[in-house]
């Protein structure tokens, strides 16, 4: 049971909004010591885990591209582009983006879009601009709510699309885990069984986005009256 002390450190540390990097190091030390490891052994295990997982950080290589395109006016151009569609509104725009994300992730194209490469420079400015066209000047609070929805839509689209792809990591993991217990699985059947959840996710989050859109308009007319 003492092993779970590190989990408690994580929960309390994140809830109290301490710096997460410090929380993680503290949790690692507590967990290791509680499991009876020597302090230096825990530090070594943490270091090995950090070095072995460097691939997680490779996605940051797209930042220079995003920054240069922003320097030349990409966000502003994205706003102008959405301005050509008179009926554009943040809700339907994000529903469309989610469909794009789910479908491309389902055929394995996961990093063709993402928080750095599409949400920050394109999707969030477009959604904000579409809201501005309908509702006029936006409050900071509304602006932030729209951006958070854009980021959430990207995550939800990928999560409930990628499992349909045969060679995705989680599909391979499932095959491996069940194989080690003597159950043979056909990866194709696993991806088929990801489809019902993907459809439900599109319906549920799509409905929430349309409600979000309606709430934005209500808030705007409420202020106008």
């Amino acid at each position, binding site marked *: 049971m003492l092993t779970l002390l*590190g*989990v408690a450190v*994580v929960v309390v540390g994140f809830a109290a909004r301490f*710096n*997460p*990097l410090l929380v993680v190091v503290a949790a*690692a030390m507590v*967990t290791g010591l509680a*499991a009876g490891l020597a302090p*230096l052994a*825990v*530090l*070594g*295990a*943490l270091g*090995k885990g*950090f*070095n072995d997982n*460097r*691939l*997680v*950080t*490779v996605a*940051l*290589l*797209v*930042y*220079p*591209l*995003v*920054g*240069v*395109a922003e320097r*030349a*006016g*990409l966000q*502003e*151009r994205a706003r*102008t582009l959405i301005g050509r569609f008179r009926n554009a509104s943040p809700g339907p725009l994000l529903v469309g983006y989610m469909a794009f994300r789910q479908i491309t992730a389902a055929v394995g*194209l996961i*990093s063709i879009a993402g*928080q*750095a490469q599409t*949400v*920050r420079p394109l999707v969030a400015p477009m959604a904000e601009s579409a809201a501005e066209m309908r509702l006029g000047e936006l409050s900071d609070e509304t602006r932030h*709510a729209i*951006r*958070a929805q*854009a*980021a959430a839509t990207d*995550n939800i689209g990928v999560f*409930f699309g990628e499992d349909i792809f045969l060679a995705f990591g989680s599909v391979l993991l*499932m095959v491996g885990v*069940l194989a080690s217990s003597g*159950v043979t699985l056909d990866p194709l059947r696993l991806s088929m*069984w990801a489809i*019902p*959840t993907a459809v439900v*996710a599109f319906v*549920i989050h799509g409905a929430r986005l349309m409600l979000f859109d309606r709430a934005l308009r209500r808030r705007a007319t409420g202020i106008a009256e």
Partner: protein
Amino acid sequence: MIKLGVVYLLLGLVFAAYAGLSALDRNNPKRFGNAAFWGLVAASFLAGDRLGDLGNGVLVVGLALIAGLGQLGRGRPATTSPEERKVLAARFGEKLFVPALALPVVLVFGLVVLKPLHIAGQPLMDPKQAPLVCLALAAVVAVGLALILLRQPLISPLQEGRRLIDTVGWAALLPQTLAALGAVFALAGVGKVIGDLVTHWLPMDTRAAAVAVYCLGMAGFTMIMGNAFAAFPVLTAGVALPILIRRFGGDPAAVAAIGMLSGFCGTLMTPLAANFNLVPPALLELPDRYAVIKAQVPTALLMLLANMVLMYVLAFPR
């Protein structure tokens, strides 16, 4: 054969440049904190395999101390003003989208055309690492295209990349650090303890109860561990295989697939999935660190419920 090592070298050089440019940035009162932080990241990518486990551990502690003691500031590289950007946007027009679109195009080209290539009997790139190798290639090609097409200064990729990385700050390294914590959790057997708790103390006499325990367990466990991949082996061995599949005759493919997707609902609700939930608020400059999680929670809870219903209805053919 091209492996991740080349990508790490590139990333290390980029972070070394961020560190050097940070040190020279007089507009940032904490410039040496930034230089030290990005310098340590550069060291990890350039020399991580030679530092040894303990050396890497000290490096992680160094990163945490710089960030935790508030020594990380925000650099202000010279960039274009909002007014200048409007003028540039009008001048370049649709050309501005070309580099952004080049990224996915080159990535797909890499995966479809370059990945299967063999040179002298050797594959051109390590098939397992191909997605990241191709992403790096695509990022480089797209930056080159942006420099030429949008006539940007040669230093701008590094200065603009630094502008973004300073916006994100310590959160940029959180995903990798959390993955390291996952390794320590695994070593200490945290997963097994939680798995034993779930299987010993929760009732699973009926099919409905067992489905609920598996799906809720996958989500809850994922929230604690930060990703569904750590939860799946433990709960599948503890709940899905003995109870749902062997006792109640569930279809293994349906049980496993929907169980994993229940775990993904947990991923949407935890700050431990930092690259999805904590990096975006930083990138989008949101004041609330948990704004994206809050936007996701209603969808995640509804999806969790939907997954339980889907598993109960679809996974038991008889």
